[in-house]
């Protein structure tokens, strides 16, 4: 059977595969993809053996530092990162939750300074597997997976 690509192939760049469908726009936001001039194609609700439905994002002529790309691990822990050169996958990367996370996550403590003043959040990752636990640099309280809220990346 002919395997057909639902999202057209790119010549050079980065493919972010196996993103949960409902997290595609968050990934775009976290990586600031809506603010770059590169050609971007994406698909949502594609069939996936792994996730049931998945999302995929392809960014032409753009490569990411591990520290940057790892920022999406919080919303798309199963994502596969493929580096493409001349239509070939030349490198596959897996994601790791970074040791420190700035921005992206909201502190779950309602009386934390970061929820009342324009202060960027900053967390130390206490646990990343199986459940994320983040320690707030400011209020020293823990935000866990069940209370993880993503905030926009715009500064």
């Amino acid at each position, binding site marked *: 059977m002919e395997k057909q690509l639902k999202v057209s192939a790119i010549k050079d760049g980065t493919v972010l595969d196996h993103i949960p469908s409902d997290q595609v726009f968050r990934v775009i936001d976290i990586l600031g993809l809506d603010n770059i001039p590169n050609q971007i194609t994406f698909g949502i609700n594609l069939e996936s053996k792994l996730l049931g439905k998945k999302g995929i994002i392809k960014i032409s002529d753009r490569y990411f530092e591990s520290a940057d790309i790892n920022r999406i691990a919080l919303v798309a822990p199963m994502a596969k990162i493929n580096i493409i050169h001349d239509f070939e996958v030349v490198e596959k990367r897996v994601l790791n939750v970074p040791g420190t996370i700035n921005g992206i996550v909201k*502190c779950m*403590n309602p*009386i*934390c*300074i*970061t929820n*009342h*003043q*324009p*202060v960027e959040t900053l967390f130390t990752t206490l646990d990343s597997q199986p459940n994320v636990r983040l320690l*707030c*640099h*400011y*209020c*020293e*309280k*823990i935000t866990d997976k069940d209370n993880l809220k993503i905030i926009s990346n715009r500064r």
Partner: protein
Amino acid sequence: MPKHLISIHDYSREEILDTLKLAKEFEKNPSRPIFKGKVIASIFFEPSTRTRLSFETAANRLGARVIGFSDAGNTSVTKGESLKDTIKMVSNYADLIVMRHPLEGSARYASEVSSVPVINAGDGANQHPTQTMLDLYSILKTQGKLENLKINIVGDLKYGRTVHSLIQAMSHFSPSFTFISPDELRLPQEYRDFLTTHSITFNESKNLNQGVNEADIIYMTRVQKERFSDPIDYERVKNVYSLNRSMLTSCKENMKILHPLPRVNEIDTDVDNSEHAYYFNQAENGVYTRMAIISALLGVTEL
């Protein structure tokens, strides 16, 4: 030494001991106007008379001038000025800032935007490190050492920030703890994990008499009514966790009772005249420890 005092865990064991040593010097002679010409800002975004007076006494005994406010009510803060802007302004005027603020993490943030040292005088229920330092000073002074002490901590172990900070600070000195509280106010899992990680022995009990005769220190805390959804539960707990003189007949001679004050009825007034009562002296020690903290942050670590 660190540039600021925001959380007790910013200070190492040695830095804690150095601060306590300096406090002892100030206690010998509290009138030390070594900071004439310096200005200390005391900015209290929520009122706390006890803490503010202690800090301002310390600043005055050091010869510094004090500026500031005791309540955010009449300041530009109520007009919506951000904490950052307030701190930027105040750090232009003062050589050191003492700050109390209801939002947790506010002191850490202030230290990051301030050009002068910041002392956290309480940020919500998070940290109150100068209280912890005076607790340590009181323990050292009454026991002659900090190492290998048996410490009972009683009352609100769940929300009590003084309890959590004291546990963190004492972890440098191999204590053994007995935690006494009702189930609703039990020490949170994260602190039990912390103690286990640091190989510190502890046991937990609901019985106020547990370990009283072996304790070197009994640290009492206030049980607050608002922690209970059912007022009847509060009444029950309040009456059970009240220390009185008859409980102290077989305790160790050196045993002292501490309480961060104000108390409600955790300690019966019949204890006040006992040689074991130390809570009123404890408050006085706050001035010396705050003098030491201010001095060290302004660069004077020896007298």
